[in-house]
């Protein structure tokens, strides 16, 4: 009994390590976008967020039953971010730090992670229309931030927008 349990633990640890090796880069980028820390620098808050999400995936590993561990971790990441959203309101110098946490989460899930609108709504416990509205507002804010910070010569996309 004990031997079988330790064998299972070994296998779980091995599978988990392989999963993290493959997915950590993308997940950490997602977490960094969420916490609003600047890209290309160490992001301790995002690392902590991701570690919590990954540890919950680890604890759930034997009960995944064919569910994608990446989806599970993303779900845990979103839940933990929502739970601690108050701590992430303060700007940290990142790309999305001018958006409120909920808009940030919707934008990252919808556009960076490519989660469908209905699934995002189910994940966050919001109506789909609300998710749609949040996403549109976040996109508009991001584009206005970009236009105000980047000089016109640096963004070739800006030329197409002007009539």
């Amino acid at each position, binding site marked *: 009994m004990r031997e079988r349990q330790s064998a299972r633990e070994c296998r779980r640890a091995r599978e988990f390590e392989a999963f993290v090796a493959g997915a950590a880069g993308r997940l950490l*980028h997602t977490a960094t976008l969420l916490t609003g820390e600047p*890209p290309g620098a160490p992001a301790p808050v995002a690392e902590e967020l991701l*570690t919590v999400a990954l540890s919950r995936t*680890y*604890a759930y590993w034997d009960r995944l039953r064919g569910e994608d561990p990446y989806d599970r971790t993303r779900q845990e990441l979103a839940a933990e971010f929502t739970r601690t959203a108050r701590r992430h309101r303060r700007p940290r110098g990142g790309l999305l730090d001018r958006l409120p946490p909920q808009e940030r989460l919707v934008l990252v899930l919808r*556009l960076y992670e490519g989660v469908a609108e209905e699934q995002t709504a189910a994940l966050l416990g919001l109506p789909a229309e609300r998710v749609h509205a949040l996403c549109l507002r976040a996109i508009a804010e991001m584009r206005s931030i970009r236009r105000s910070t980047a000089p016109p010569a640096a963004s070739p996309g800006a030329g197409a927008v002007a009539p």
Partner: protein
Amino acid sequence: MSPPDRKEAEVRRMLDGPHPLVPPDLALRAAVRGRRLLARRRALSRAGWLLLFLAALALTVWAATQQPWTPPPTHTTPPLEGW
């Protein structure tokens, strides 16, 4: 391509910036924490089962000794009739 799609693509490009470096011990740290979480969860469920078992045992012992299904002894004499 419709305008919302173009706007979405623009923001998507902005989000896809440089990726941060993953610390090499991230998996290990998460696994250690996950194991602790699992152990705590297991201990909690074990304590719950133990409590349930003890409650069932206490109920059995109480029922066996007190026998609450037997009617209580009558304290009043039945009315005297027919003489």
